[in-house]
C-alpha cells in the first residue's frame, strides 16, 4: 500500500468519527470571591500547572503606557515579609517554576510544580502570597524601569520588533491596542510605585480573574488550591468593556529606516475577536492563505516560487476586541517592493475569488486531523483552558471543535473574507534600508519614491 492510499483510507475514517479519542472534560466553578476556575485532571505525571489570568493587559494602561507590563513583572519582587531573593529561593528549593507575562488583553502568573504534597503546598502558598500581598518595593520598581528601558533600546536593533510596533500603531490609531506592551521611554520613566499599586488594586481582583488548573490532583484538591490561590484577593469588579476598534479609513504606508540587510514587511488591518461569528470561517480561510506553513498560498508565492523569504505567513490574532489580521515576510532590501506586491496580490486574489473546494478540504483535513496535537501535553491543556475561560467560550468548546470546523462552508469563508478584509485599505509597514527602496522604486506601484523625500533621515 502506498502512502496515498493509506492517506485516503484514514481520511475516510476520520470524517466518520471525528472525535473517537477522549477529549479532556473541563470542569468549571467559581471561588467564593468570584474567580472563575477551569480544571482538567491529568494524573499521568506527578506535576501540576496552575495559571491565573487577569483582564489586566496593556489595553488597560490608560494614559500610562507600559503600566500593565511593569505591574505584572513586579509581583514577584516582594510579598508579605519576603523580598525577591527569599521568594526566589523558596521556589527554587522545591524546583517550582513560576512564570508571568502580559499581552494586550491579559496578564498572568503561572506555576509549574510537583504534585508531591509538601512541594505543592509550599508552591501554592508562595504563589498566593505573591498574588495577594505584593509589596512592590521601591528599589524593584526603579530597577525594573531601568531594565525595561534597556529592553526598549534592544527593540530598536530588531527590525521585526520595530515593524510590529509601527504596525500596531498604524492599525489601531487611538485604540489602546495601538500602544506597545512595554510602553515608551517617556511613559515608563514617568511611572511611580503609586501607579503600580493602584493598577494592581483595580485589576488584580477575583472577579477579574480566571484560573486554569491541569495536573495530578483531584477535583476536590483543585477546589482547595483555587481557594488558596485566589481566596485572599479582593472581590473587585470585572474590567469594563473595551472600546470598539475603528475600521481603517484609507491605506497607510509606514517606512522605518533601519540599517538591516532585509526589509521586514507587515501588512494588515483590524481582524477579528475571539468571540466572533466569523471566527472559524476566517481561521480556516487563513489556514489556506498563510496559516499552514509551507503549504499555504503566501509561502508558495513568496518562498517556494521565488525564493524571496525564509518565512511568509498570515494570521488573525483573535482578541477581546478586533485583534489584528497580519501578513508578514522578510526579504533582502532589493526584493522588498516586489515581495510586497506579491503578498498584496495574493491577498487581493484570495479575497476576490474565495476559497476553492480543494483548499477548504485540505485546510479542514489538516485542522481536524491534527486536533489531538493541540491537546497532547499539560502545557497545551492549560493554554486551552485559559482561552476557554478568559474569553468565556462554551465548556464543550474542545469537544465540538472538529464538528464545527467540518460544518463551515466554502460560501461562509469566501463571504467572511469579502466582508472583513479590505485589501485597498490596509496598513503596510516596511522596516529596512531606504537606499534599496529608492533603487528599486520602479518595480512597485506602491513605490516609496514619493515618501522618501518626506521620510526623515537620521
Amino acid at each position, binding site marked *: 500500500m502506498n502512502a496515498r492510499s493509506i492517506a485516503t483510507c484514514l481520511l475516510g475514517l476520520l470524517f466518520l468519527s471525528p472525535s473517537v479519542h477522549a477529549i479532556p472534560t473541563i470542569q468549571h466553578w467559581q471561588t467564593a470571591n468570584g474567580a472563575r476556575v477551569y480544571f482538567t485532571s491529568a494524573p499521568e505525571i506527578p506535576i501540576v500547572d496552575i495559571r491565573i489570568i487577569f483582564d489586566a493587559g496593556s489595553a488597560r494602561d490608560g494614559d500610562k503606557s507600559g503600566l500593565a507590563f511593569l505591574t505584572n513583572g513586579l509581583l514577584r519582587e516582594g510579598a508579605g515579609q519576603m523580598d525577591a531573593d527569599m521568594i526566589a529561593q523558596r521556589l527554587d528549593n522545591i524546583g517550582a517554576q513560576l512564570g508571568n507575562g502580559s499581552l494586550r488583553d491579559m496578564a498572568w502568573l503561572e506555576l509549574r510544580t510537583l504534585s508531591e504534597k509538601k512541594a505543592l503546598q509550599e508552591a501554592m502558598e508562595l504563589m498566593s502570597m505573591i498574588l495577594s500581598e505584593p509589596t512592590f518595593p521601591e528599589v524593584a520598581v526603579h530597577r525594573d524601569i531601568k531594565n525595561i528601558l534597556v529592553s526598549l533600546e534592544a527593540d530598536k536593533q530588531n527590525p521585526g520588533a520595530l515593524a510590529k510596533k509601527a504596525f500596531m500603531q498604524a492599525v489601531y490609531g487611538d485604540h489602546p491596542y495601538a500602544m506597545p506592551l512595554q510602553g515608551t521611554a517617556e511613559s515608563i520613566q514617568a511611572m511611580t510605585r503609586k501607579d503600580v499599586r493602584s493598577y494592581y488594586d483595580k485589576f488584580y481582583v477575583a472577579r477579574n480573574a480566571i484560573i486554569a488548573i491541569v495536573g495530578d490532583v483531584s477535583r476536590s484538591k483543585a477546589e482547595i488550591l483555587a481557594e488558596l490561590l485566589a481566596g485572599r484577593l479582593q472581590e473587585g469588579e470585572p474590567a469594563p468593556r473595551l472600546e470598539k476598534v475603528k475600521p481603517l479609513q484609507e491605506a497607510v504606508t509606514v517606512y522605518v529606516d533601519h540599517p*538591516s540587510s532585509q526589509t521586514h514587511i507587515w501588512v494588515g488591518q483590524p481582524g477579528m475577536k475571539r468571540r466572533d461569528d466569523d471566527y472559524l470561517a476566517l481561521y480556516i480561510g487563513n489556514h489556506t492563505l498563510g496559516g499552514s506553513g509551507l503549504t499555504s498560498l503566501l509561502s508558495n508565492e513568496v518562498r517556494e516560487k521565488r525564493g524571496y523569504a525564509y518565512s511568509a505567513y498570515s494570521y488573525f490574532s483573535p482578541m477581546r476586541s478586533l485583534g489584528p489580521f497580519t501578513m508578514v515576510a522578510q526579504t533582502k532590501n532589493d526584493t522588498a517592493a516586489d515581495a510586497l506586491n506579491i503578498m498584496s496580490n495574493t491577498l487581493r486574489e484570495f479575497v476576490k475569488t474565495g476559497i476553492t473546494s480543494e483548499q477548504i478540504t485540505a485546510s479542514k483535513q489538516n485542522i481536524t486531523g491534527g486536533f489531538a496535537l493541540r491537546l497532547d501535553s499539560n502545557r497545551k491543556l492549560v493554554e486551552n483552558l485559559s482561552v476557554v475561560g478568559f474569553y468565556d467560550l462554551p465548556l464543550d468548546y474542545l469537544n465540538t471543535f472538529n464538528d464545527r470546523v467540518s460544518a463551515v462552508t466554502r460560501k461562509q469563508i469566501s463571504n467572511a473574507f469579502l466582508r472583513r478584509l479590505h485589501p485597498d485599505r490596509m496598513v503596510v509597514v516596511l522596516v529596512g534600508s531606504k537606499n534599496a527602496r529608492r533603487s528599486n522604486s520602479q518595480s512597485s506601484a506602491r513605490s516609496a519614491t514619493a515618501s522618501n523625500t518626506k521620510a526623515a533621515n537620521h
Partner: protein
Amino acid sequence: MYPTITLDRRGKIFMKIYAKTLLSLLVFLALPGLAQARVYEYLLANGMKVLVKPDNRSPVVVQQVWYKVGSSYEYGGVTGISHMLEHMLFKGTEKYPAGEFSRIIAANGGRENAFTGPDYTAYFQRMEKTRLEIAMELESDRMRNATLPADEFLKERDVVAEERRMRTDDNPQARAYEQLRATAFVNSPYNHSVIGWMTDIQNYSIEDVRQWYGDWYAPNNATLVVAGDVDPEEVLALAKKYYEPVKPREVKKQKPRTEVEQYGERRVTIKVPATIEHVILGYKVPTLKTTDNPDDIYALEVLAWILDGGSSSRITSELLRDRQLIAGGSVSYDPYSRLQTLFTLSAVPARETSVEDVEAALRGQTDRLQRQLISEEELDKAKTQILTDRIYQKDSIFYQAMQLGALETVGIGWQADEAFNEKIKSVTAEQVMYVAKTYLNDKRLTVAILYPQQPVPDFARHKAATVVHMQGER
C-alpha cells in the same frame, strides 16, 4: 535604602527554616516510581537504529529520523551545506514530487519540519497516532530517493540566504556569538555556525548538495526515534517494512579535527549597527562524548544551574537584582555536544553600566567558584531544580524523543539519559570547585564584546514624518 545582605548569609538563614521541605523533596525525587518510562531499542538488518518510547497520555505520535551529519562535519567552502541539504529534502522524490510530502502530511493532520545542528540533521512529523505509517513511508522514501532538482535548488539557496540574513546578519547578538565561535575555535569545525558563511551559501552548487546527500544519507548512519501512544512491536514491524529495504552504504569516517591547545585568553570585538551592548565569555569545556571523566560533565551541569537556574541563581540574584549591573544574563552549556564545546556566560549591561564592569562581574562569578566551595544548601537546591525539571520534561513527548535522538546521534548512547539523574545526585561541592578551576579559567577563555555603532534611528522620533497616507490607491 534597601538593605543589602550577602547571598550566602541569606541563603543560610533561609535554609534553617526550609531545610525540612527541601530534604524530603530530594527523598521524593529518588522514588522508583519516577524512573524513566522504558525505551525500546532495535537494530534493523541494514544497520539503522530504532528507538521507541511509549507514552500513551494522548493519541499522538512523533517520528524523528536523525542523521549523523551536521555543520561540524563540514569543511571550508561548503559551510552550512548540511542545512542546505535539509531544505532540499523537501523538494521531492521520484514518487512524491516537490510539495507532495508536505501536502500529504498536512492532509493527515500532521505537523512536520526538520532541524540541523552542529552534530545532526533531523526530520520529524507529529501525527495523530494512526497516521504513523504514512509518515514512515514518506520519510523512508526520501532517505534515498530525493531528486534534488537543480531549478528548485537555486531558489532554495536564496531562501537559505534570506534565512541567514534574518537569523544572523540582522541580529547583532547572533553575529557576536558567531564571531565568538570563530575566534575560540581554530581547527575545530565548531568554528562556524550551522547556517554557514554567506559566501559559502551563495556559492553552493547542486553537485555539492548531491554529494553531501550521497555521503551521509544512509540507514546505517541514521536513527529512527518514535515516541507517543504506540506499541513498540508494531513500530518495529513498520520500521522493517519501510526502512529495512533501504540498502546500507559505506559512510566516510570522520577525521577527529580535535581543537588545538589554547595558550591564553582571546578577545574579539564586534562593532555593528546596534543599540545595546553585549558581553559573552566562552570557556572551552569537555562534553560527555569527549571526556574521560564523565563526573566532570555532571559537575559542569550543576555549576551551570548554580549560575543560572531560576530566579535565585547567582547571575540573577547577585548581578541583576542586588548589584544591578546587568539588565539580563544567561549561561549555556550543552553536555551532549559531539566535540569540545563552549560554556558561555553572557549579559547585557544595565543602564549606566560599562561593558568592562559587566565583564569583570561575570569573571568574578567564575573566579569565586574556583576559590569558594558552594554550600550544601545551594548544591541541593540546584540538584532539586535539575531533577524536577527532568520530571517536567516528561510533559513533552517531542522533547523526550529529541533527547534520545541527540544522545544516540552524537555517539554517547541513549542510555546516558537514564543514568543522568543518579549522576547528578552524586555531584559534590568539591567537584564543582574542581571543574571551575580546571575548565573555567583564562587559558580556555574567549571574550566577545558587542559595541553598538552608529545609532539606529529612533522610530518614535521619526514616525510622524514617515507615515504616508496613500489615498486613492486602487
